[in-house]
């Protein structure tokens, strides 16, 4: 990896990524709920490791909504 970036983004890839990101975010939240809901409180300590990923994916979702409302996407 040396200045590694395999592909430049353009609008069609952007649309696709933002749509898939929304699906992944919803799926991740559902999966986390299913996996961790039956665990007692004290065994949920490692649930926090998923928070940064969820925050980033949620941020991309908000960006998708913003661009959609602005008519850019």
């Amino acid at each position: 990896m040396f200045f590694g970036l395999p592909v430049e983004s353009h609008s069609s890839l952007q649309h696709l990524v933002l749509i898939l990101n929304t699906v992944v975010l919803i799926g991740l939240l559902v999966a986390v709920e299913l996996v961790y809901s039956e665990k007692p409180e004290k065994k949920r300590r490692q649930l926090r490791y998923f928070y940064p990923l969820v925050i980033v994916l949620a941020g991309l979702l908000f960006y998708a909504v913003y661009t959609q409302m602005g008519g850019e996407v």
Partner: protein
Amino acid sequence: MGWFKSEALSLPAEHFVVNIMPKPVTSERLAAAKTKVLGFRFDILVSLFLLVAVGTPQVLFLIHPQSGVYATVAGLVAMSILAMKVRRARKVAIAASILPVAMMVSLSLPQSIPFGQAIVFYDAMLLLGLVYRFMFTLEEPVEDTRLGIKGYLFGLPLLLVLGQVMGAAGFGLLHNQYPFEGVSWALVAASMFVFAFAEETVFRGLIQQRARYIMHPIFAAVLTSGLYALMSVGMGNWLSMVYALIAGSLLSTVYYFKKNLLLTVTMNVTSKLLYLGLLATFIYR
């Protein structure tokens, strides 16, 4: 998020330095690495899983970028499932999943020039890497690096030289593959510090460090080198991958012996800066 308030604010400053020494790998952990799952050794299975999850999108980007996007997302989903279902592999799976997430962030924010695209990618990787380095040290006791003043006085100059050798090799292999033409040399040089720090934080500081808890440290270094090289496949140039494999192996070896990110960052930055300097002197003068 009560854990964040109570634990984060009470941490001493040592938790935020780059040279935190991970706690020793015990023989019980190495024995656990050899347990069989589905007929394969656990450490080999996890390594193959991560290599396929990260490498497949890079290959598909060469053939059909949209398929590469689907594969990137599928890789992220697969690593998330691994993290949720297999507690032992949770931290290394989450660390590796930073790569597809950074790729998704980069692809979601199109930039007018490749340099801008690289900035977005590395910034996303760096931010997530720093957050996870902080979170992963909350639960485990850590000690500062065993490198003293003498260690740094010997190690830093040595790695400056090794970095320059690496940079010269990179120039020899990649002098026709410079992606940031037209961008100010000073700006690119300054960003090399960010790029190198991001790479070392994620690959050595997270993936290799966490992998050594579920596999032999040499195996963890090999896995990290493989992931580092696979991230270059999508550039469509086999020379980039060869160079990334050599550089990644050297960096992982240095981290295997010294477990100090300052040394690997020094080597990485030096190699990138020398590559830039040689390009500016001999190719783009």
